[in-house]
């Protein structure tokens, strides 16, 4: 007997020449949530499918309580609850029909079926939506329904493949509580995720990279190891990119990332702390202080250590001096002069009798990175669409790049770039043809279009894939291509709608570095994001909830406002959740008072 619990022994799986899992050995015996964390292509989904018996290993084996998951897959079906990345709900069946079907297929005893389903509906809060088609559920609700389906029969092991992708922070917290409640005592839950803040909430974390296990332990073990290695450089805003470039070249530092106004550094093992003056020689105010490590720091440090012999992680190669040449450089870079790039005044949007945006006002300075955050359905995308001239406001005024939107939306559209949430380029066209198309669509003269296309190919590291079909690119490349396409006409304001959804952490950081470089050149960046740890990259944040502006602050001020005795150092997500909860409380109080 190879023992109780889930045992992976030298597990290897290849797809053609690519190695998805490379001799993985690990044992999971206790209950609790085990986070499976790693970048795209680390082998997370492959591991899930091997355990679920949907793939066969090329070498090694995986057993649950001594039974082989590949050869005894059928016998283990009812013991393993598996929720695929695609959720796997039948969108044309109602919530209750999905639950009944899975209950019947998984052999929930007929007498217990309705009681079990009711329990699931109650726990997930889906009872009022039982007759709604699964395809009409919001992202968060659909995820809960899929979870209820997976857990309809009490399992011995739970596999959740990226359950929180596309789910807003509030729903994500509920999902966590739900998994803890429903999984049952002593049942291990394997939860794969690309959200590093989620990893901190797991009982145990398995760090995967390129099919290998590069870390295994409690989240505290990971961050604990970095206790004295995390520093923060405070530096003038216009010096931060050059400081970042210097830090990236410093062998004593494994990571340097811009967050808010600061540069967060991670020291290599046993390396001495660098001097602030060495990183920012032209800023006498620059100073270095220690800071608390985050899981993300541990993740990057572990990745760097695992990949050291090979090429460095996918962050852009630093140029010889100055910031990486990213973004939309124009001969004379626009100055970050504090002028106004965009302003909205009591903006309102109604759809029938539903008010999606309810009197929102703010203004954004030139060269600012401005984040709109809020749960699904808060009105972020509606504000975005109005500012892009895609949706006429019901009331109020908006000025974009000095042009009143009401008077000439088309003229305003010519001055902005828009990068949609979904990959919205032509998947069957080559990278080069996609860029040509966008240059043509913006009406650039032919010679100019060619020049900008070639420049974009070089700047965004796309030259090597210029002839490849856009649809066949890995996510990181696709994202760079989307950004390059949105910048072909050299816009003054760039709108990014959930730009980093579904992109792994290293690619996300590289992306933000480009955004920061662009902002330094005077391009104004408007962004929505679900990754609240990313909200730290913004200069200012507007928290939108139920169509209203709840707060408009710098990330630091937002965090400071949420500090309490039991949580002295909240992160942006804590602050965000506190704001939303307070707003809900006030709304409830208002109702009961009335």
């Amino acid at each position, binding site marked *: 007997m190879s023992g109780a619990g889930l045992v992976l022994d030298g597990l290897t799986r290849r797809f053609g020449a690519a190695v998805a899992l490379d001799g993985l050995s690990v044992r999971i015996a206790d209950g609790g949530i085990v986070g499976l964390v790693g970048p795209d292509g680390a082998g997370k989904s492959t591991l899930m499918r091997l355990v679920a018996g*949907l793939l066969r290993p090329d070498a090694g084996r995986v057993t649950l309580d001594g039974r082989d998951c590949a050869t005894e897959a059928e016998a283990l079906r009812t013991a393993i609850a598996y929720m695929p990345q695609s959720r796997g709900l039948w969108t044309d069946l109602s919530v209750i029909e999905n639950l009944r079907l899975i209950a019947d297929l998984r052999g929930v005893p007929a007498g217990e079926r309705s009681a079990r389903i009711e329990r699931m509906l109650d726990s997930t809060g889906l009872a009022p939506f039982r007759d709604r088609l699964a395809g009409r559920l919001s992202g968060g609700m659909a995820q809960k329904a899929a979870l209820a389906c997976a857990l309809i029969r009490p399992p011995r092991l739970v596999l959740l493949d990226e359950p929180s992708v596309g789910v807003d922070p509030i729903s994500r917290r509920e999902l966590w509580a739900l998994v803890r409640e429903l999984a049952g005592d002593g049942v291990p839950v394997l939860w794969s995720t690309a959200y590093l803040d989620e990893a901190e909430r797991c009982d145990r974390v398995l760090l995967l990279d390129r099919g290998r296990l590069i870390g295994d332990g409690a989240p505290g073990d990971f961050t604990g190891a970095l206790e004295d290695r995390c520093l923060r450089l405070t530096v003038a805003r216009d010096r931060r990119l050059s400081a970042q470039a210097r830090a990236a070249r410093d062998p004593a530092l494994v990571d340097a990332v811009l967050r808010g106004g600061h540069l967060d550094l991670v020291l290599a093992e046993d390396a001495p702390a660098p001097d602030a003056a060495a990183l920012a020689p032209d800023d006498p105010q620059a100073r270095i202080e220690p800071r608390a490590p985050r899981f993300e720091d541990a993740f990057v440090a572990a990745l760097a250590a695992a990949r050291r012999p090979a090429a460095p992680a996918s962050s852009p190669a630093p140029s010889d001096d100055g910031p990486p040449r990213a973004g939309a450089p124009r001969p004379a870079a626009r100055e970050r002069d504090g002028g106004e790039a965009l302003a909205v005044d009591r903006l309102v949007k109604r759809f029938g009798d539903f008010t999606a945006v309810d009197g929102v006002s703010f203004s954004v300075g030139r060269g600012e990175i401005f984040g709109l955050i809020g749960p699904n359905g808060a009105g972020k995308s509606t504000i975005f669409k109005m500012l892009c001239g895609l949706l006429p406001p019901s009331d109020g005024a908006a000025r974009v790049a000095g042009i009143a939107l009401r008077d000439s939306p088309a003229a305003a559209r010519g001055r902005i770039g828009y990068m949609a949430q979904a990959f919205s380029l032509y998947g069957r066209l080559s990278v080069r043809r996609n860029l040509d198309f966008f240059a043509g669509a913006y009406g650039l003269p032919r010679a100019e279009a060619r020049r900008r296309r070639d420049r974009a190919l070089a700047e965004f590291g796309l030259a090597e894939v210029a002839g490849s079909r856009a649809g066949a690119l890995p996510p990181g490349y696709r994202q760079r291509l989307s950004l390059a396409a949105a910048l072909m006409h050299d816009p003054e304001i760039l709108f990014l709608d959930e730009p980093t959804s579904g992109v792994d952490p290293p690619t996300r950081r590289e992306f933000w570095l480009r955004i920061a470089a662009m902002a330094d050149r005077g391009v104004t960046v408007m962004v929505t994001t679900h990754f609240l740890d990313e909200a730290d990259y913004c200069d200012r944040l507007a928290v939108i909830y139920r169509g209203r502006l709840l707060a408009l602050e710098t990330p630091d001020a937002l965090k400071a406002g949420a500090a309490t005795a039991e949580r002295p150092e909240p992160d942006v997500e804590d602050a965000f959740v506190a704001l939303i909860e307070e707003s809900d409380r006030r709304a409830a109080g208002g109702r009961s008072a009335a």
Partner: protein
Amino acid sequence: MSRAAARRLSALVGKESRQILRDPSSIAIAFVLPAILLFIFGYGVSLDAEGVPVAVVVEQPSPQADSLAAAFAGSPSFDPVYPLHRTPAQRLLRLGEVRAVVVVPASFEADLARGDAAVQVLLDGTDANTARIVSGYADGVLSGWLADLARERGARTAPVIEAESRIWFNPAVRSRNFLIPGLVAIVMTLTGALLTSLLVAREYDRGTIETLMATPAGVGEILAGKVVPTFLLGMASMGLSVAMAVWLFDVPLRGSFLVLAGASALFLTAALGLGLVISAATKDQFVAGQLAILVTFLPAFLLSGFIFNIDAMPPAIQAVSHLVAARYFIAIAQTVFLVGTEWSVILPNAAALAVMGVAFLGLARALLVKRLG
């Protein structure tokens, strides 16, 4: 079958049935498309010649010549015009405004008296099929007129031998009568193959195949869950087509309806099986849909004897047509509709259908393994 398996199967059948009923496109494929096809073929497309435009030129009016010209107007097959000269008539033929030109020569009256009369018929051969039909009908009008003339004269100078043809099974020679039974096969190919080919592929497209495979449901159960409701839908679609054929288009149903239904069931099984094979092999809704049309619908249309006579095809194509299930069913359907329950035709064709059904279902079962990649 264990009780758990029976419960799984009934859950799967229920699921598929709901999905089919909720998907307007499956209802359209099963009921709207057949109705449209039947209307087009029943009313629009006809291989009969009726009211064919012809030009009749009488070069020298005379009682006999005028009577012959009038005979064309009297025939339901023709819709004649009467230009005065050959030249404008030939121009009409060139423009395609008439299909044939009949010239009654100036010497017709005299020639007829001598017993040696000839009439020139110029045919538009661009559409060879119509040209042949028009030629035959023109001959018919001429010989009819001659016979009338002979009767009138009471003379015994009638043509030497007269073939007395009787057309069996379809005395009115209505092409509708053999097209519509064939159309029932086309319609069922659509419901069977097109609908099923989308079903499995859809589970892959939406990622629900992983949910299904992670349950104890076996591949056979998953397939059966899909086959049962589509089979019922296909039979309903067949019933609709037959009802329209009999009551709307007056196609006679001479054989037994039960025999027709039985053959339909066999044919549908083969069509469903092929749809499942396509679906399981492509795992992509779009490709599956395209492929289903290419390998089931088009061959059923072209290589089944529905419109084009298989015996007239080159031997290589005839060989290929043996792989087309619709061919066997159309043979049965045309026989049962027009001839009657003729077992010597029905049995061999039904056996071929049964073999194909079993083969396709087995292949689909083999292709759909409970594993991904």
